[in-house]
């Protein structure tokens, strides 16, 4: 909310500079985001135009005689928007005002006023436009015309009751009382220790029957209505001082009646509405829910069909406004209005909020009413509006009202010990009570003390709310700092530990961690579909996306990472390795890729299957020599295995397993026990091409929920006491025999002596017969009880080879 310091000073008596007032408000919870200093040029006074005549030598200039009280000045001007008898601001000789020229680099040029002669006629001063005085808001180019009650010769800034600065105050949503000048003034006064004067307003009640009654048709919508008729007033000119304050508060000036309702809303916090009394049918307005299909044309000219129950104000002929949200056109005031009917309402927050959301009309009035304003504001707002209307010459009728009256003040019991215990402080009860008195919280007793809650503080409901008021009033900065370590937790940190361990493993293997946006849209989908491969069919869709990028939750980390890879590969001069850890989402019962058992780390209690995933990508420049063994695939596999081994040393099996996004011949699962813990493979060439990636692009995903969250404590295995031996062999087998088949068989047949088996090379070519391949194996042999002899080793190798022969028709390659 923007509020001018001069408006605040109507209620606080203070000479404090704007910056100090801003600090005080910020420290009390009303953060001042900006201070717009108002330049106040000196030697500007109110002048009255006494006469006007044509300039003898220039058609476009006029010569005027202006009374400024102390003297009469002859001023030559080019402006034409004023007449004899008007009051205007006069810059006297010696004044420095702002130039009309547009500002260069944000600094406005100034213009010093001196005695001059224009085309042979002396001119001793200048009539000022709004821009020459740097007044807020938008104005046309003409001279400022002041109100007719202005005092000739008086100082301009005093006369218009404006100056100093405009504060941009951030009001928290629980304090609708401070969405008003009076509320902010009360807080500023308390913070400054300055006197605060609440407005004392007469009732401004006439005796005539308004001819229009007010009724509550539905008490769940409206708690109170007051109405009053004013005669002899139209939507005419707004007093200049009022329009200045509105403009300073970023509100446009739109005619007297609209301006008064905005002004009163800003000053008191009470929203008001004016109707043209002659257009109200049936002699009454009623607050009720709309009937199904009722139609209203709102002030913006839009015809709206109202849902049943929408809060409306209706007259005998139907709705004349959407209650508290938006006025209707039918009974609106306009230029011809001379009789107005003022409505000052109190609506129930929830229905107003629901209707405003449903209609997409988040108006200022709606956002105030939805906060459940106090009943007491209804009369305050009406009185202030009546005062301003009467000042403008209107004649008030009697006041009509309906609905609840304000109840007695609520009270809250506060235990001083509780205040100190929650704040970590040691205040006396008296200090607590004294601190909150300036904001209208009166207290009785001391332990406990009873706080009586003023009507405007609808946010204070229990003891802890008063504790905050005490803390805020004395100052958060005065509360002592305490230090303590929490006692050890029984909380399971496993998921986070797992993330950290794996991230570090992949980082150490040369992978750069990425963080991509977990929402996607048609861009993500079409990038993938350029490959001709299908995107995940069942997606968790967002009901209310704001843009196309927010249509669904990612079903996998792969599409996002591929997009990152495209950019990374563009600039790469070698291998590129990327990974990401994050949640992925599928609708429950999605079947296009069955998920292994959901255990720790996955969430499905919210109707969506959500689980943490780790995805990696590695891209390599093309190899010069082609080899049958894809060493890059094995390098990537090795990176995955190393990461898995940071969490478990259980035996890891590899099982070829096609996935639609992998090359069908280069994809496998890594399995521990009964669970797939990872999958890896070469990215499908069509997919690689769609993302402008090289053919040598590999990907892997870890099933985090199937991996231990932290590495179990290992038991030490005594180091071997006797030397062992290794034997390398190469066996020729059919194409369908895998390295894993051979190593498993070696282990089985080697018996106790076989310590480890590792396949380390593959060969196809002239030295082996067609359709077959040779696989090289390194076999480590060791006895636990003695040094292994050549004879022991030969016998073991004999058994191993026999086994390979029987099982795979393997022959030793020589």
């Amino acid at each position, binding site marked *: 909310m923007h509020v001018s310091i001069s408006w605040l000073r109507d209620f606080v008596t203070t000479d404090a500079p704007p910056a100090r007032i801003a600090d005080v408000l910020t420290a009390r919870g009303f953060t001042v985001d900006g201070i717009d200093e108002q330049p106040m040029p000196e030697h500007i006074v109110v002048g009255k135009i006494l006469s006007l005549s044509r300039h003898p030598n220039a058609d476009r200039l006029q010569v005027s005689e202006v009374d400024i009280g102390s003297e009469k000045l002859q001023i030559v001007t080019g402006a034409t928007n004023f007449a004899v008898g008007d009051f205007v601001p006069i810059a006297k000789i010696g004044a420095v005002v702002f130039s009309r020229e547009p500002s260069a680099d944000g600094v406005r040029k100034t213009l010093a006023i001196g005695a001059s002669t224009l085309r042979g006629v002396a001119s001793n001063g200048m009539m000022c436009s709004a821009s020459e005085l740097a007044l807020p808001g938008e104005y046309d180019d003409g001279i400022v015309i002041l109100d007719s009650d202005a005092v000739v010769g008086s100082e301009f800034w005093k006369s218009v009751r404006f100056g100093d600065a405009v504060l941009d105050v951030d009001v928290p949503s629980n304090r609708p009382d401070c969405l008003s000048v009076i509320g902010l003034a009360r807080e500023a006064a308390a913070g400054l220790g300055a006197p605060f004067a609440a407005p004392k307003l007469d009732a401004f009640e006439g005796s005539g029957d308004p001819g229009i009654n007010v009724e509550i048709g539905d008490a769940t919508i409206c708690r109170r209505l007051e109405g009053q008729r004013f005669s002899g007033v139209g939507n005419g000119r707004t007093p200049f001082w009022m329009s200045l304050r509105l403009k300073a508060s970023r509100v446009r000036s739109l005619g007297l009646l609209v301006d008064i309702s905005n002004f009163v809303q800003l000053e008191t916090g009470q929203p008001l509405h004016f109707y043209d009394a002659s257009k109200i049918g049936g002699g009454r307005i009623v607050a009720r829910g709309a009937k199904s299909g009722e139609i209203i044309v709102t002030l913006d000219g839009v015809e709206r069909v109202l849902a049943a129950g929408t809060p409306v104000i209706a007259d005998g002929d139907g709705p004349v406004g959407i209650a508290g949200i938006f006025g209707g056109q039918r009974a609106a005031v306009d230029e011809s209005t001379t009789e107005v009917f003022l409505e000052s309402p109190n609506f129930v927050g929830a229905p107003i909020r629901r209707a405003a959301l449903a209609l997409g009309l988040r108006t200022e009035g709606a956002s105030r009413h939805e906060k459940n304003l106090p009943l007491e504001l209804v009369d305050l707002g009406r009185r202030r509006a009546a005062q301003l209307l009467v000042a403008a010459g209107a004649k008030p009728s009697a006041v009509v009202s309906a609905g609840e009256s304000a109840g007695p003040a609520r009270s809250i019991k506060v235990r001083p010990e509780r205040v100190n215990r929650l704040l*970590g402080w040691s205040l006396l009860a008296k200090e607590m009570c004294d601190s909150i008195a300036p904001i209208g919280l009166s207290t009785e007793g001391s332990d406990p003390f009873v706080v009586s809650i003023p009507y405007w503080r609808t946010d204070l409901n229990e003891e802890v709310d008063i504790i905050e008021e005490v803390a805020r009033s004395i100052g958060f900065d005065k509360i002592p700092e305490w230090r303590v370590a929490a006692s050890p937790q029984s909380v399971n940190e496993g998921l986070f530990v797992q993330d950290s361990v794996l991230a570090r493993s992949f980082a150490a293997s040369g992978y750069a961690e990425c963080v*991509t946006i977990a929402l996607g849209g048609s861009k993500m989908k079409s990038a993938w579909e350029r490959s001709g491969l299908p995107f995940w069919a069942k997606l968790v869709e967002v009901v209310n996306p704001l843009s196309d990028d927010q249509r669904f939750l990612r079903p996998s980390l792969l599409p996002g990472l591929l997009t990152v890879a495209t950019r990374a590969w563009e600039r790469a001069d070698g291998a590129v390795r990327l990974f990401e850890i994050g949640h992925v989402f599928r609708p429950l019962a999605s079947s296009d890729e069955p998920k292994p058992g959901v255990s720790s780390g996955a969430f499905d209690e919210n109707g969506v299957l959500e689980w943490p995933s780790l995805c990696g990508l590695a891209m390599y420049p093309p190899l010069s020599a082609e080899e049958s063994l894809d060493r890059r695939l094995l390098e990537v596999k090795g990176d995955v295995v190393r990461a898995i081994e940071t969490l478990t040393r259980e035996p890891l099996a590899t099982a070829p397993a096609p996935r639609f996004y992998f090359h069908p011949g280069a994809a496998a699962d890594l399995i521990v026990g009964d669970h797939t813990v990872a999958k890896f493979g070469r990215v499908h060439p069509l997919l690689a091409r769609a993302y402008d990636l090289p053919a040598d692009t590999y990907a892997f995903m870890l099933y985090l929920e199937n991996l231990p969250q932290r590495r179990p404590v290992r038991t030490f295995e005594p180091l071997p006491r006797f030397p062992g031996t290794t034997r390398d062999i190469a066996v020729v087998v059919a194409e369908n025999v895998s390295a894993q088949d051979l190593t498993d068989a070696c282990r089985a047949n080697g018996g106790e002596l076989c310590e480890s088996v590792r396949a380390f090379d593959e060969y196809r070519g002239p030295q082996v017969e067609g359709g077959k391949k040779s696989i090289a194996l390194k076999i480590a042999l060791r006895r636990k009880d003695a040094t292994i002899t050549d004879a022991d080793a030969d016998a073991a190798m004999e058994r191993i080879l026999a086994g390979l022969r029987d099982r795979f028709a393997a022959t030793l390659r020589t």
Partner: protein
Amino acid sequence: MSDQLAELEAAVLERAAKITTRADLEMLRTEVLGRKGGALSRAMSGLAKLPPAEKAEYGRRVNETKRAIEAALDAALARIEKTEIQGDLARTYDTTFPGNTPRSGGLHVLRQTLDDVVDFFRSRGFAVVLGPEVETEYYAFEAVNIPADHPARDNMDTFYLPNGSLLRPHTSSMQVRALKSNPPPIAILAPGRVYRRDALDASHSFMFHQIEGLHVDRGVNFGHLKGFAADLCRHLFGADRRTRFRPSYFQFTEPSAEVDVSCGVCAGRGCQTCKGTGWLEMGGSGMVHPNVLRASGYDPEGFSGWAFGLGTDRIAMLRHDIHDIRTFFENDPRFLEQFA
């Protein structure tokens, strides 16, 4: 015969003194001391032909010769090694060539930031918990004292999913989850992604990261929160940084406070980074609202606690002078590398 031995010894010693390479030395060793066909073993073979009386004397002579030759060869080896080391030491290397870094990977700057925050919390006895990003209205709103139709829901424009669940707009949804699933005392931090219905620009992202700190026990007070926040800011930004508590409003805390840290660019005097205020917003905090404790089955008369919500992205932006939040999610390799 003895003369032959003396001649052999003299000849070998003379040759050994001239040898400069290991290969020549090895060749000489084999030639003289080799088991089969070596000069000395040939000399030994003459032993059998000698009369028994001379055998012992001759044998002694052969051994003497052998020892002398061995000593000479060892001395030659020592001399060669010394020369080699001297030669090695005479070399100079250009150590200014760049080192060979085999692979360069690294952790994302957001994880590094989180790790630093986690380090601090853990040092104070806190533990890390993770939770779902797809949340129920209950944990996201109702449990943290934001009932249906409450205007506070507007401040967090939320993504909804077809079955009525939503994408959590804040990690405060973890408060009641943690309180319900663990016995008191509770001292946790819950980091994670959060989502708000925003357009993507330099300072807004519809996905960003928060860290929720929560400490609930008997006797936890606002002063503890102040002390903790002040220490955390110093840990993250430097020992000279001050903190400020500004009254604020959150549904789930009372009293509520915004925590500001003094601007590091201008040392609090006011500059463009801090919009002239001298302070930078760190996050929202406050004492856990009694209604939140009640929703978790805790008696607010017995237990109290504080909550502190931090923006991971914001902390990283402030610490590393990053001005556009989108930088984190674009993953430009040159960006990733800078923080690897």
